[in-house]
């Protein structure tokens, strides 16, 4: 088990998916923050600087497009964004917001861990 290597911010409106990702990444030793939509996530990035953001696209209140735009306008450095979406246009959505990577749902937990490891070393 690794030591806590950084914070991952998981933004998804589905409670179960947030839980599964949190448990998996926490088991791997990452500190995880979660938010059910972009608006809550923006509040969180003010308080802590996550090293990686896992972002769902279709969410109520503030969706992935609006979040990424607002986040990139914040001063300072920005964490890489991995798009997590069940939409058929997963790669299109990822390119629309110039995300660093994309993981279509449903995903394999090993894939998720590998991807997170790649961005947080």
């Amino acid at each position: 088990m690794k030591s806590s290597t950084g914070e991952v911010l998981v933004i998804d409106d589905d409670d179960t998916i947030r839980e599964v990702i949190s448990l998996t990444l926490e088991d791997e030793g990452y500190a995880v923050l979660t938010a059910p939509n972009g608006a809550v996530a923006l509040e969180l990035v003010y308080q802590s600087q996550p090293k990686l953001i896992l972002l769902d696209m279709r969410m109520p209140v503030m969706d992935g497009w609006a979040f990424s735009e607002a986040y990139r306008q914040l001063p300072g450095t920005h964490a890489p964004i991995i798009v997590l979406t069940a939409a058929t246009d997963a790669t299109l959505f990822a390119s629309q917001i110039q995300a660093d990577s994309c993981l279509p749902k449903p995903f394999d937990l090993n894939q998720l861990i590998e991807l997170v490891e790649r961005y947080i070393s």
Partner: protein
Amino acid sequence: MEPSGQTKLLEEVEQLQSRVTTLEETLMQCRLEKEQFQTALGQSEAHLKLALDQTAQKHLVFLAEASKVLAATLDYETTLKTITRLVVPHLADFCAVDLLQKNHVIERVAITHIDPVKEALVLRKGLIRTFDPNTSFGPPKALRTGQPELLSQPIESSAVNSALNSEQLAILKALNFHSYICAPLVARGHSLGTITFGLSESSRRYVPSDLELVQELALRIAQAVDNAQLYREAQEAIHMREEFLSLAAHELKTPLTGLRGYAQLLNRQLDKGDLSDLARFRRALDSILEQSDRLTHLVSRLLDVSRLDLGWLVIQPSVTDLTGLVEGVVRLAQANPNKHRVILKASDIPLVVMLDPIRFEQVVISLVDNAIKYSPEGGQVELQLDWLRDSDTITLRVTDQGLGIPVEHRQHIFDRFYQAHRGAYLGGMGLGLHIAQQIVTLHGGQITAEFPEEGGTHFIVTLPGNLIYNAPLNFTTPLDKEV
């Protein structure tokens, strides 16, 4: 006989001879003129025949050209502009095509005027013009009656003044028609729009024989527009289906992600030999069951839609305690942790009704789920069950204090695949209300919606009173039971 008498007689004979000669000359002259006249008449007839043949020939060439233009593309807005340009100036000084839109507005889609200044005026004043459907002349009349109209003098000003607004009057005055033909575009028994030919600049007037050409052109335009509209509708249906499939895939993959995730998480724990945290095992298994219920629900809704499409959705009515059924749904909703207060107002005396309990429960759940889903800020969701003796109807009213439904979406909320708040990503496939309405219809009832000004939405399910099985004599209103 006296000599003087003889002379007189001779004079008279001479005079008579002279008159005969004059008459003979006149007769000759008449014969000559008759021949000349007959020759001229023959030439005129020949000319007239030639002229008619030439006109018919011109009309045929025009119709062939029009057909070619109409067949060239399914983009009828562009095509119709070409057609009006073909008509002016040979057949009219002004030509316009108006089409009936889905919202029953008559829209002017193409217009050409011999005078570019006047054409620009009409265009500047707005290509899209709405007509009062009750107007007693022009496109609205032709649409209403399905018959062409020919006018060989200006429209009576009283009729015009009452039907048009000041801007339309100004346009009509500028166009200054003294003769026009307006023919409906009829395809498969429906009037799709009209074509108008107008004369203003020349001294020509339309005559009844001109109707034939305009009607022939109208028929060809109508067929082309009808084909193009059918093609568009088919394309829209395909597009909608694709969008729905993409949405359905998204909706199915979301619970699948949670389900698979938890199953893999359990596997990983087993791989590590870590069986200590039994609470975590329990939580994972509960989640897996929950997500599989979600999947089952979604798949059932998808099956319902295909059953409805095929006419296979049938109801199996049985004696049902409707009050108890609604109460059950309310208790279920109350048990879910959320920001909403769900209450039921009903009579203490249960309403026992003949209906399909499983399907009707689905309707009530759908309405309550919607009320909760579309009130993201929480608030009260109230169900009120009543039997109105005056109208002999059973009503179930579900009211929320949520987002309400924007005016432009209201007429579509019961449509298949329709979501009034799609951009809000609140989930769902746009099927709930559609299926609910179909189920209620199968029971002989209906669902209507009200949109109070203070916000929120009221859905009212109305069932016919004859579904009541054993009418309770002591049924009480007002409703004093609260759950």
